[in-house]
């Protein structure tokens, strides 16, 4: 059992890393620990638990910027933003339940370190696009900062972007400044029943090419749709293609009509209003339709127009899943075998994208890298970048595992 260190300040965090460096003791970096099952298991005698670094430091709604300590629960941030009718526009996913951890306990630092964005990513950008600046402790035991607290900034390298999606392997983030945006006054979701994958991706493509500012575009085969808590979706008895619009009421009404017209004749059309729409997109955001006993869960990022072909190709792995991001994101569950994994990786790669193994038994992860293997040149570059931040490899060693991450 790892010993847990729980710093209460950025300075204590620095001291802990400096000590670990001096003793050559690797650290596992943890916020609320909801994503500990994501990535390769970290073997470290000490766990650096950042839950003590909690609280909003600064929030001025008119600036559209919020600064909080890395261990602040996202729920606390969402509640503060809701008071000013604002939100995190990248729709951070809550993967806790998918990964066997409690719901609604993920921290700001954790969600940004994993760069996890929800359905609105197609319109609003990813988690990394909303991260403006940060303070961290590098694997060299030094406290440094990057970026700022303003939306437009080209002052030095954009280290903030690099930290998003680095899974705690470059530095321990202690404080983050993020861009926040007004929450939409109204939401509508247009549902089209009965399309096949090709027709759904074509329909989503047309919607996303129209000036209707579509903020969600997903395709659920019938078996996946049947699992929704939203009755219109679950009881359709057919596949569901969903298109979301958000904004001022008058605008949402007009765009909703435009999308209905655009989908006319394709299949039966339904409409979800505020509550049902929110439930539906939250389910997709958190990958809720994944069966509890699904052995391996994948997330593929591919060029959106290839979504239907990717989906068809994945059938060879004997799994199931759905499309989000207009076809650009595929959630897929399949047997936890090397053979099925090879199909998934090959299909993603052939489409020009990549596949991440979100959930799997450790046994499979020993044979299949969690993160998509990189070409040699980029892998070497990434390794050199890591060596600049954490030359001794004491932060989350092996978390990103596999070739190209400075570890074998």
């Amino acid at each position: 059992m790892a010993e847990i260190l729980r710093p209460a300040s950025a300075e204590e965090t620095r001291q802990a890393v400096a000590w670990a460096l001096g003793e050559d003791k690797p650290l596992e970096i943890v916020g609320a620990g909801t994503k500990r099952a994501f990535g390769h298991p970290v073997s470290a005698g000490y766990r650096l638990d950042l839950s003590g670094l909690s609280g909003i430091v600064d929030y001025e709604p008119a600036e559209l910027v919020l600064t909080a300590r890395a261990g602040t629960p996202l729920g606390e941030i969402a509640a503060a933003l809701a008071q000013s009718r604002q939100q995190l526009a990248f729709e951070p996913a809550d993967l806790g339940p998918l990964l066997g951890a409690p719901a609604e306990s993920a921290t700001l630092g954790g969600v940004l370190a994993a760069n996890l964005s929800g359905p609105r990513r197609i319109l609003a950008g990813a988690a990394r696009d909303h991260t403006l600046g940060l303070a961290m402790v590098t694997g060299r035991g030094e406290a440094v900062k990057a970026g700022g607290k303003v939306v437009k900034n080209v002052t030095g390298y954009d280290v903030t972007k690099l930290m998003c999606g680095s899974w705690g392997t470059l530095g321990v983030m202690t404080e983050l400044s993020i861009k926040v945006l007004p929450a939409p006054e109204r939401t509508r979701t247009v549902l089209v029943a009965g399309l096949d994958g090709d027709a759904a991706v074509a329909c989503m493509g047309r919607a996303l090419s129209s000036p209707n500012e579509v903020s969600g575009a997903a395709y659920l085969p019938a078996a996946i749709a049947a699992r929704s808590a939203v009755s219109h979706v679950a009881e359709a008895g057919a596949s569901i293609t969903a298109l979301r619009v958000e904004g001022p009421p008058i605008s949402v009404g007009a765009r909703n009509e435009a999308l209905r017209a655009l989908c006319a004749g394709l299949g039966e059309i339904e409409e979800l209003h505020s509550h049902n729409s929110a439930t539906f997109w939250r389910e997709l955001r958190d990958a809720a339709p994944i069966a509890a006993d699904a052995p391996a869960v994948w997330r593929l990022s591919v060029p959106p127009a290839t979504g239907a072909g990717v989906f068809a190709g994945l059938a060879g792995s004997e799994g199931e899943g759905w499309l989000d991001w207009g076809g650009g994101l595929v959630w897929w569950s399949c047997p936890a075998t090397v053979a099925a994994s090879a199909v998934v990786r090959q299909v993603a790669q052939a489409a020009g994208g990549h596949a991440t193994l979100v959930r799997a038994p450790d046994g499979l992860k020993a044979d299949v890298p969690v993160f998509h293997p990189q070409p040699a040149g980029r892998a070497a570059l990434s390794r050199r970048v890591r060596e600049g931040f954490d030359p001794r490899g004491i932060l989350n060693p092996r978390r990103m595992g596999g070739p190209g991450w400075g570890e074998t």
Partner: protein
Amino acid sequence: MSIAMPLPDAEVLAGRDGFLAALSRIVPGEGVIADEKGLRTYECDGLVAYRALPLAVVLPETVEQVAAVMALAGEHKVKVVPRGSGTGLSGGALPLTDGIVLGLGKFNRILEIDYANRCVTVQPGVSNLAISQAVAAAGFYYAPDPSSQIACSIGGNVAENSGGVHCLKYGVTTNNLLGLEIVLMSGEVVRLGGKQFDSDGYDLLGILTGSEGLLGVVTEVTVRILPKPSSVQALLLGFADVVDAGDCVARIIAAGIIPAGLEMMDKPAVKAAEDYCNAGYPLDVDALLICELDGPAAEVSELVDRVEAIARESRATVLRRSQSEEERARFWLGRKSAFPAVGRISPDYYCIDGTIPRGQLAHVLARMRELSAQYGLGVVNVFHAGDGNLHPLILYDAAREGDLQKTEDLAGAILRLCVEVGGVLSGEHGIGIEKRDLMGVMFTEDDLKQQQRIKCAFDPAGLLNPGKVFPVLHRCAELGAMHVHHGKVPFPDLPRF
């Protein structure tokens, strides 16, 4: 010149002829420029106060040539300064006397327009505007729109993470970029991202964007394109006091409205612009706002009503809404010609580029007026008020002894002020050489060393565009060294479980 550049490498200067011969074997014919007259064209970028002649200029046409040039330069320890259209305002493409300028002007082809994936792949020398023009007929555009968009190259936009008037709603370059092909100083070609939304592994695409040509040479760019909004309308709002204008900006945002553009001009800027192009601006205002809203027609007309109501509450003295495309274009005419307009009222002007929290607008403008009086130089302000990105223009006369020095001192004082109120040194022009020596105002030595370790991962010999961005150059061996005090750091006094 008050900004010192690294001392030229005497050995490189001595070996010029041999190096040029080898360079001409890679890029034959007119692709290598080495005569003084030819080199003069490349002696500066948009920061014209600083000039230098490079060893040579090379204009390759293929990625293979770029890779071979880089490898050759590496072998001969010759520095490389990448250059797009040379419109940069911070001196990022200023030549080094012992280095070559690698111009990407011949990389001017649009390689693929992929409407199904809503993206376009281009060579880096394609201009920003050309991308929007290429997809306009199909109803798409490329969102970031720097003022120099007719001339500036997309490769340069990547290097500077360029913005524009519409980035409040649509983001800057980094938010609209999907993929890159880059060539490292070693000559190695690396591809980052692609046509998918998220790139995998470390976000090297993110670190390349805004890296000012210090990490790699961009040879291919894939950007997202967006469907053009169906309706656009602008409001012209005048205020008797700049504080009211700042208040109006804050209230618009607080009301949950994100305009496509929200620009401010101060009184001298309004006057200069009006004298220059007769845009019909009111001259009896202290500050003028242009607020543009785009989206579905129903949304735009409702939001225009809401903004107008907010402007009234903020004591606007002039309220006009565009009734036609022609009128909207006229609202923008003065703003877009503000720089040439200022060029007409002053022999020279110096444009600076800080960003501040929106709430500090009125305070910073007032302080700037004091600084302007103190230094005895006029300051004209046009800026992207929506995102707090200031572009003060300092009026000076280069022919007058000491004026440039005084101007740079005033610019430094204004940028320090930006940082003091919680802002940054550059919003969209980059650090280059212009703000290089001010980096210490924002960052500690440790912060800057950590950034330079990223450069070491890409360019260990420090040959790609050195002397830019970082005030002190450290060797990578020195940056990589770590003094670990084994067993001497006490166990931190932390709660343990």
